[in-house]
């Protein structure tokens, strides 16, 4: 047999590895062909590697070739191996070839490459760790390992694309990479040039089309129902029977909250919102809401928790805004600080303290850190060429200068960017620069201004790397945070200017710098410390206590460099035993309908408007958390909000907990408000174990701060509950024999206990709904505020429940439609229905040809319009014409008329 390979064809890796693994290469002839040579006579498109068998048959599928080698050695494949190979072909390959194309042909890097394969990598990692086996299909290596390893090797051999947190994938990959046949195959194909060795082949390939609709999806992956062992069931039953007595005493409320030796002390911060912007939904989910869920969860675990945030108030933007509104910067901050605080209060964010950065403590701590950096030699002085206004007697920050754009000649270009051509400008390049502050006509002078720089190079960089090396492994830093931090380090750290020519900021305590303040990115992150200092004078017990404090910082990904690099460098350089971030939790971006949130265009929902929609805060919280951009961007959509509310909340959760005729309602209706006796059957015990398993899953996810995924566990338990009631039909049994009545009692009792458990699990997500359920069930106080890892009977027989009423309201289409219109963005889709003309003619070949030409012509028109991103309605009209022409063509060609979809085309 003869194997056809081509320089740099990725498929050669698994094939050569399989050949080496399965048999000697004695009878295997290898021929090298060009990437565009057609080896297989019946295939239109070129394909390598290809194996020509002695019978003359061709194997043109990489997996099939590998399989053939294994089969020749007598190794058959089981179901699990087949499943991996099918997954490799349908899921992994499309993602992987896109990633390799971006990397090798288009020269993209980082997240642009990793983004398309992350989901697939995570899937492998989860499968490996779930089944706890070293190989994909069990204890021994199989064909699946070779095929997947070979596919992944070109990408993963660069450690930057093998995410550290996927530890199971990591060790599987290492194990295979050190095997002799794999090593040999890797050397032959990559020739020690790394992934670039694939270039000669990949650049001849068409660009892989990105899998449609996968980039932005709000649907998490399905989980399968686990199989339960007898032990698991027995343990779940034992825990359940212990009931309330297994709850520990409630932690007494402390004020202020301070770290306690020997306890788990959790310090949580969410990125400080900039004071003069009203936050939109994306800001809210990115920081405060995500951090709030974790803080509430942390308290449910009885961990000693402090959650803080505040407004970031210094900087140019505040100063400009103050001038616009004719107020002082302080007045602007006071005004907007209240707006922020109100919005977060409405969203029920459980801050222990919500402070601000314009306080004496901020000055004190920032200056202290600065002094320490200065005395240790980490601060450099350097001159910067800058514009100076004699009239105002100050150097002008970029934003304070206006002039003529050097690129397009626009008259009112700003000092940092031109609004017309969008190019970034250095203020000194502006023609006829003008001072924005005094608007005086006197010319500006170029002058040298002395600035301070934090020297991130040298020692600090080394210390940072050392610290990251200690911190990252085993921590819960999100993949994007790890990636951004790593790529900053890889590009090398440069000295960073930490001063600005402004008045509104923390003063620089150094002679000659009286007119300058610290640049916000040096002192904004110090805000967390000063806000704590304003909360308690013992703030150092939180912030200079790395051994005892676990610091979780929440933010959107654009904020990662300040928290992952800049602040840690300052803190390490200050040598004052600061608490550094243990878990940096960064979200991706949330889009609005099909685009971005935009304050200026009035597109999107902003924090203060959410209150006016008539939709309760908990529904907002639920939906935002359901679509939390965890791992990938997601999109807010009004229609989706309506669907999720009406399906998940109303029909699933609400239906189970207490709408008629479910758990809570049964207790009132059939058992006089008292929880009935429960006699568990084996089926009930299995349900207990399933709920326990899901609860433990919830804990595992939230401990890793996978907030969105954990919400699904709640909904899964509720679905189990609904099914349980549906199958057991207590409303029928209650009218039956004594045994039937007892069964109805057990089912009702167990269901109402699941409702109680759900109320606690729901607490971090929907605090008001949770409290309402708990009040309705009269759940005893310790059970309300503690969540153990086992499902307990917290409502024993005889417990009296309160009045039960519905929890959720249906959202109606017209209500949502009017909200959608009010907040702009995606328009309602009203496409005119094309008039259907039935023509019954028999067409000759000329007519068919003419119609075909028309279709081609019209098709080109539509494609061009789409490429030019033309107006939607215009495109739609042309598409209608095209469809009509196609229909005429079909009739002319004598094709069967289109039947209604789903009938004929089954």
């Amino acid at each position: 047999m003869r194997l056809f390979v081509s320089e740099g064809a990725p498929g050669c890796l698994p094939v050569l590895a399989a050949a080496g693994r399965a048999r000697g290469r004695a009878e295997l002839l290898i021929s090298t062909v060009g990437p565009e040579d057609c080896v297989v006579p019946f295939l239109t498109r070129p394909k390598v590697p290809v194996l020509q068998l002695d019978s003359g048959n061709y194997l043109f599928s990489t997996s099939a070739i590998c399989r053939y080698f294994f089969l020749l050695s007598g190794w058959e494949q089981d179901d699990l191996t087949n499943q991996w190979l099918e997954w490799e072909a349908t899921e992994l390959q499309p993602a992987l070839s896109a990633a390799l194309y971006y990397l090798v042909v288009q020269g993209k890097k980082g997240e642009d490459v990793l983004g398309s394969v992350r989901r697939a990598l995570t899937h492998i990692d989860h499968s490996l760790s779930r089944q706890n086996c070293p190989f994909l299909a069990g204890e021994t290596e199989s064909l699946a390992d070779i095929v997947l390893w070979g596919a992944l090797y070109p990408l993963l051999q660069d450690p930057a694309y093998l995410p550290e947190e996927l530890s199971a994938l990591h060790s599987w990959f290492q194990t295979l990479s050190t095997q002799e046949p794999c090593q040999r195959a890797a050397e032959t194909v990559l020739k020690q040039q790394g992934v670039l060795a694939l270039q000669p082949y990949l650049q001849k390939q068409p660009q892989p089309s990105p899998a449609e609709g996968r980039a932005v999806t709000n649907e998490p992956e399905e989980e399968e129902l686990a199989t339960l062992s007898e032990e698991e069931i027995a343990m779940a039953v034992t825990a359940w029977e212990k009931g309330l007595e297994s709850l520990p005493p409630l932690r007494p409320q402390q004020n202020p909250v301070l770290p306690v030796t020997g306890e788990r002390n959790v310090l949580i911060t969410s990125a400080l919102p900039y004071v003069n912007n009203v936050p939109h939904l994306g800001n809210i989910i990115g920081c405060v809401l995500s951090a709030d869920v974790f803080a509430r969860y942390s308290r449910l675990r009885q961990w000693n928790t402090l959650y803080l945030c505040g407004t970031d108030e210094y900087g140019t933007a505040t100063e400009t805004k103050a001038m616009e509104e004719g107020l002082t910067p302080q007045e602007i901050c006071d005004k907007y600080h209240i707006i922020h605080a109100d919005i977060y209060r409405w969203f029920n964010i459980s801050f222990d303290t919500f402070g601000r950065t314009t306080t004496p403590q901020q000055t004190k701590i920032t200056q202290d850190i600065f002094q320490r950096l200065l005395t240790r030699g980490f601060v450099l002085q350097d001159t910067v060429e800058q514009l100076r206004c004699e009239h105002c007697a100050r150097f002008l920050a970029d934003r304070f200068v206006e002039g003529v754009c050097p690129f397009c000649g626009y008259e009112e270009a700003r000092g940092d960017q031109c609004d017309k051509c969008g190019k970034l400008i250095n203020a000194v390049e502006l023609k006829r620069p003008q001072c924005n502050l005094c608007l005086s006509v006197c010319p500006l002078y170029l002058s040298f201004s002395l600035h301070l720089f934090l020297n991130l190079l040298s020692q600090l960089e080394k210390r940072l790397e050392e610290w990251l090396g200690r911190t990252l492994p085993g921590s819960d830093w999100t993949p994007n945070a790890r990636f951004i931090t790593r790529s900053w380090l890889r590009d090398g750290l440069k000295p960073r200017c930490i001063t600005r020519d402004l008045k509104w900021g923390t003063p620089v305590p150094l002679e000659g710098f009286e007119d300058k303040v610290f640049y916000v990115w040096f002192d904004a992150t110090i805000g967390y410390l000063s806000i704590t200092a304003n909360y308690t004078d013992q703030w150092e017990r939180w912030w200079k206590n790395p051994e005892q404090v676990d610091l979780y910082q929440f933010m959107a990904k654009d904020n990662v460099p300040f928290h992952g690099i800049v602040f840690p460098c300052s803190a390490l350089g200050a040598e004052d035993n600061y608490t550094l971030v243990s878990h940096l939790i960064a979200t991706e971006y949330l889009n609005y309908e099909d685009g971005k949130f935009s304050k200026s265009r009035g597109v999107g929902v902003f924090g203060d408007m959410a209150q006016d929609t008539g939709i309760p805060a908990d529904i907002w919280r639920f939906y935002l958390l359901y679509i939390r951009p965890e791992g990938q961007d997601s999109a807010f959509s009004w229609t989706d909000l309506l669907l999720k509310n009406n399906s998940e909340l109303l029909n699933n959760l609400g239906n189970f907990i207490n709408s008629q005729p479910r758990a809570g309602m049964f207790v009132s209706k059939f058992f006089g408000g008292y929880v009935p006796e429960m006699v568990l059957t084996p089926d009930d015990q299995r349900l207990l174990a399933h709920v326990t398993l899901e609860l433990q899953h919830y804990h595992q996810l939230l401990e890793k701060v996978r907030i969105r995924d954990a919400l699904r566990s709640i909904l899964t338990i509720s679905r189990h509950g609904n099914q349980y009631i549906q199958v057991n039909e207590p409303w029928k049994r209650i009218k039956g024999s004594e045994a039937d009545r007892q069964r109805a009692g057990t089912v009702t009792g167990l269901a109402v206990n699941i409702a109680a458990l759900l109320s606690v699990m729901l607490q971090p997500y929907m605090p008001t709904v949770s409290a309402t359920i708990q009040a309705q069930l009269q759940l005893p106080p310790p059970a309300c505020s503690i969540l153990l890892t086992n499902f307990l009977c917290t409502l024993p027989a005889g417990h009296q429940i309160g009045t039960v009423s519905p929890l959720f309201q249906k959202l109606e289409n017209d209500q949502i439609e009017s909200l959608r219109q009010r907040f702009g963005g995606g328009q309602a889709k009203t496409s005119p229905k094309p008039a259907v003309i039935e023509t019954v003619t028999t067409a000759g070949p000329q007519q068919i040809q003419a119609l075909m030409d028309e279709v081609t012509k019209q098709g080109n028109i539509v494609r061009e319009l789409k490429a030019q991103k033309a107006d939607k309605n215009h495109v739609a009209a042309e598409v209608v014409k095209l469809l009509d022409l196609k229909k005429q063509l079909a009739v002319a060609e004598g094709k069967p008329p289109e039947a209604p979809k789903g009938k004929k085309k089954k």
Partner: protein
Amino acid sequence: MAAAAELSLLEKSLGLSKGNKYSAQGERQIPVLQTNNGPSLTGLTTIAAHLVKQANKEYLLGSTAEEKAIVQQWLEYRVTQIDGHSSKKDIHTLLKDLNSYLEDKVYLTGYNFTLADILLYYGLHRFIVDLTVQEKEKYLNVSRWFCHIQHYPGIRQHLSSVVFIKNRLYTNSH
């Protein structure tokens, strides 16, 4: 045709009496089978091969190493090429390739009927019913193979029977 419906067809054609229930996963509605003892199976061809073994008809997966590899190759082709691409141009390239491949073959493996024939038949059905008379003529070998499989006992079931007769306008004159 939804994957679950297709697998039910396959069950019947294999003579498996007890019908399985399938759930669907994700956007592409990949079928999932919950087996009695053991983990679930995901994916059309994975489940199909499992059903064949369950029915003790292993010969449908091929008898020699070569045949087995070829069967799997066409099963992969089914889920990646036929299901993956549905633009008209792609389908025509695909039919052209298949037509040329089938020129000297009765079945996909040559002389033996296998699971590959069944699943390619199910997968192509929706495209073949829409072909014009001229196109059916053009992909003559595909038409011959397709017509043969649809008459294979127990395969077609309720799917519509595609007509391949040539009318008098198209005699074998050339």
